[in-house]
C-alpha cells in the first residue's frame, strides 16, 4: 500500500517537474503587495496584470498578496536572503532607503523617461521614493491624509457640532460617552493606528518643525522637546476620558475590528487614512451616506496650523529589484499600473491616484472631491513617522506610543526613550 502511494507520488512529482520545464521558456515576474482585501487597489492591480499579460503573452506576472503587517517582515527577510521579488511594494521613505542603500533597488529614472512615464507622476509624490534626484519607486495607489471620519447621524441626533479645537473635542467625547457611544473607533494592536493621534497632537502643539528638527537632528531638535511631551499628555488625557473602545490595545485594524464598532453604531468617529473611504465603500457601502469627515482639531495656543495634515502623497510605491532579470518588462508593467484605465478604476473605487492628467476633473463624487481638496490644498503634509524614520527608530516610536496609550509610560519617559534611541542610532552618545 505504502509502496504504491510512494510510486504515485514519484510519478506525479516527475510530471510536475516536466511541466515546469515546459513553461520555463516564459518570462516570470513576481509581484508582491499588501492588498489582500477586495477593493480599489486590488482590482486595479489585477486588472493591470490581465491587460499586461494579454499584450505580452510571453510574460507571466506572479502576484503574491501578503497581509499588511506580515508583509513588512516578509519583504525584509526576502531581501536579506537575496530572494526578493522582481516588483515589490513599499511606502517609500526610511524603510525603502534601507533597501536602496544596500543596493537592492533598481534606479529606474532613465527607464521611466525612456518609456515616457516620468512626467505621469506627481513630482511631490515621487520625492518619497527618490534619493539624490534618482527615482527608485513610483507612487501607485492613493493620495492619503489621515482624517477624522464621523457618523453624521449620531452627531445630528445628539446635536453635536464638528469640534474645531481640542477642548471642543473633549466636550463632544463627553456627550458621546454619556450616550454609551465610544468616541473613536481605534484598533491599536497595529500601533501605526494610534500613532496617527500622536502625530497630529505633536503637529498641533509644536508645528511640523518639531518633528522635522528632531528627525534631522538640526537646530537643537529633540524627541524629548516640549511638543512631544505635551502631545503625550494630551494623548493620555484622551485615554483617561474614554476616547477609545474597551480593549482597543489588542484590537486589529487588519481584521476590521475598529470599523466594526463604526458599523454597529457603537462608535462615532474614526481617525484613519483617507483610504478608509474606499475600504468602507467595499465593506459597507450604504454607510457612506451617513459618513463625513473633518480635519483633526487644533489646540488652543499651539503652533501648528489646524489645517496641517498627516499622510502621504503616494501611499504605495512600486519598485523594481536590482536583481530582476527582465527590468524592461517590469517597467512596462508599471506603465499599465499607472495608465488612464488604472486611474479611472482607482477613482471609481474611492482612491485619488497620484498620477495621470486632470485627476481633479475626473473626480465627480462630491465627497471624494472634498477629500482631494483637503489633501491637495493643505500647506503641510506630515509623512507618517514610521515611514520617514529609519526602521529601528520607527519601531521605538510605535512602541512608546502604544505604551502611552496603555498609560504604562509617562509622556516624559516616552519622549526620553525615543530621544535616547535617536541619539544611539545617530551615534551621538
Amino acid at each position, binding site marked *: 500500500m505504502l509502496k504504491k502511494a510512494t510510486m504515485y507520488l514519484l510519478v506525479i512529482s516527475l510530471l510536475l517537474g516536466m511541466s515546469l520545464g515546459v513553461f520555463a521558456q516564459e518570462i516570470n515576474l513576481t509581484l508582491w503587495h499588501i492588498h489582500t482585501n477586495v477593493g480599489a487597489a486590488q482590482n486595479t492591480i489585477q486588472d493591470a496584470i490581465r491587460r499586461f499579460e494579454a499584450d505580452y503573452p510571453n510574460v507571466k506576472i506572479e502576484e503574491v498578496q501578503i497581509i499588511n503587517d506580515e508583509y*513588512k*517582515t516578509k519583504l*525584509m*527577510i526576502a*531581501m*536579506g536572503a537575496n530572494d526578493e521579488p522582481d516588483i515589490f511594494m513599499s511606502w517609500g521613505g526610511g524603510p525603502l532607503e*534601507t*533597501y536602496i*542603500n*544596500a543596493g*537592492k533597488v533598481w534606479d529606474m529614472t532613465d527607464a521611466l523617461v525612456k518609456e515616457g512615464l516620468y512626467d505621469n507622476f506627481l513630482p511631490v509624490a515621487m520625492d518619497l521614493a527618490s534619493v539624490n534626484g534618482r527615482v527608485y519607486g513610483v507612487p501607485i495607489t492613493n493620495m492619503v491624509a489621515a482624517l477624522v471620519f464621523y457618523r453624521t447621524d449620531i452627531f445630528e441626533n445628539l446635536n453635536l457640532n464638528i469640534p474645531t479645537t481640542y477642548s471642543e473635542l473633549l466636550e463632544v467625547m463627553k456627550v458621546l460617552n454619556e450616550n454609551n457611544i465610544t468616541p473613536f473607533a481605534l484598533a*491599536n*494592536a497595529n500601533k501605526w493606528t494610534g500613532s496617527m493621534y500622536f502625530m497630529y497632537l505633536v503637529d498641533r502643539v509644536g508645528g511640523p518643525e518639531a518633528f522635522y528638527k528632531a528627525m534631522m537632528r538640526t537646530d537643537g531638535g529633540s524627541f524629548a522637546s516640549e511638543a512631544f511631551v505635551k502631545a503625550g499628555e494630551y494623548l493620555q488625557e484622551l485615554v483617561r476620558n474614554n476616547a477609545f*473602545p*474597551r*480593549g*482597543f*490595545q*489588542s*484590537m*486589529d485594524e487588519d*481584521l476590521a*475590528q475598529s470599523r*466594526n*464598532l463604526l458599523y*454597529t453604531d*457603537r462608535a462615532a468617529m474614526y481617525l484613519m487614512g483617507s483610504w478608509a473611504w474606499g475600504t468602507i465603500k467595499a465593506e459597507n457601502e450604504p454607510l457612506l451616506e451617513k459618513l463625513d469627515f473633518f480635519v483633526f482639531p487644533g489646540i488652543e495656543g499651539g503652533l501648528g496650523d489646524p489645517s496641517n495634515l498627516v499622510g502621504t502623497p503616494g501611499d504605495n510605491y512600486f519598485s523594481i529589484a536590482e536583481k530582476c532579470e527582465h527590468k524592461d518588462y517590469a517597467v512596462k508593467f508599471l506603465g499599465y499600473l499607472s495608465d488612464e484605465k488604472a486611474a479611472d478604476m482607482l477613482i471609481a473605487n474611492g482612491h485619488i491616484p497620484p498620477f495621470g492628467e486632470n485627476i481633479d476633473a475626473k473626480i465627480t463624487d462630491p465627497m471624494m472631491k472634498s477629500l482631494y481638496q483637503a489633501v491637495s490644498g493643505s500647506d503641510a503634509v506630515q509623512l507618517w513617522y514610521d515611514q520617514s524614520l529609519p*526602521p*529601528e527608530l520607527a*519601531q*521605538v516610536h510605535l*512602541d512608546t506610543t*502604544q*505604551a502611552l*496609550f*496603555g498609560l*504604562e*509610560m509617562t509622556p516624559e519617559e516616552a519622549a526620553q526613550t525615543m530621544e535616547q534611541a535617536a541619539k544611539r542610532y545617530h551615534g551621538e552618545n
Partner: protein
Amino acid sequence: MKALDHLPWYRRPGVTIFLFLAPALFFFALYVLAPIPVSFFYSLFKWDGIGQRSFIGLENWKELIGDPVFWKALKNNVTLVVISLATQLPMGIALALLLTSRFRWTKLLKTVYVLPYMMSAVAIGMLWRYIYEPTFGLLNMFLEAIGRYDWILDWLGDPKVVLYSVINAVNWQFIPFYMLLFMAALVGIPLELYEAAKIDGASPWKAFWTITLPLLWPTVTNAAVLSLVGSLKYFDLIHVLSGGGPNHASELMATYMYKRSFHHLRMGYGSTIAVALFTIGFALSMVFVRVTSRKQYEGGDRR
C-alpha cells in the same frame, strides 16, 4: 568486530549505519547545529540584515543585560513553563484516565479532544482572537448574556491579564498532546495489577497513587521535559494571538528576538537574544533531566 575484519571497509556495519544516517545528519548539522555558532558570531555585530556588518564586540551583550524587556520576557517564559507544567500534565493525565476507562462516549470524545492539537497554531490564534474580542467576542458576549458584567475583561489588551489569556490558549492547544502520550502509556499497564489491588481491597484512589502514577512516571518526566523545552522556546501562538503586546506584556524571549530582528532590523541584537535563549533553555533542560532521572533511579531502587 574481529569476525568482520575480512570485509572491505565499506561493508562494515559502522560504515553502513553512518551512511544511512548521513543525509539526516547533514541536514541536522546544517539547520540545527551550524546556526548556533553562527548566531553567536552575528551577535558581535551591528547589522540590519541586508547591508554591511560592523563589528562592535560585546556591545550587544552589554545591552542585553541592561535590557528590561528581555528580563520581562524571560520572566514571562518562566511563568509559562510553571503554568504549563502545573496544568497541562495533570489535565493530560486526567483526560487520559477518563478516556481509557470504558464508558459510552469515549470514542467520540477522543476525536473531539484531539482536535485542538490537530489545528495549526495560526488557526488557533485567530480562533482565540475572536473568542477574546473585547466587544463582539464569544467570551465577553457570553458574560454579558449571563449578566456577569463584573467578569468582563479586556482579555488581550490589559497588560495584567494578557499573559494568562494567552497561556490559556496554549494549554488548550497542548493538553491533547499530553493526553495522547499518557493514553499510550496507560494502555501498557497490565490489568492484573488492578485486579490484584481490588482483591486486596484497595480503593480506586489508592490504586491510582500506588499503581498508575509510579508506572506512568517515566512518561511524566518525558512529558515534563517536552513541556519545559517547548515553553521556553514557544513562539507561534503568541505571535498570532497577542504579538507579545501590548507594550511587551506578553512578550516571550522568542517573540522578542523576532521583533528585534525583523521589525527593528537589528539582526545582531536579535542573534544575541537567540543565543541567550538557547543557552538558558539548554541549561535548564539539562538540570531538569539530571534531577528527574535521578528520581527515577531512586524510585526503581525502592521497588
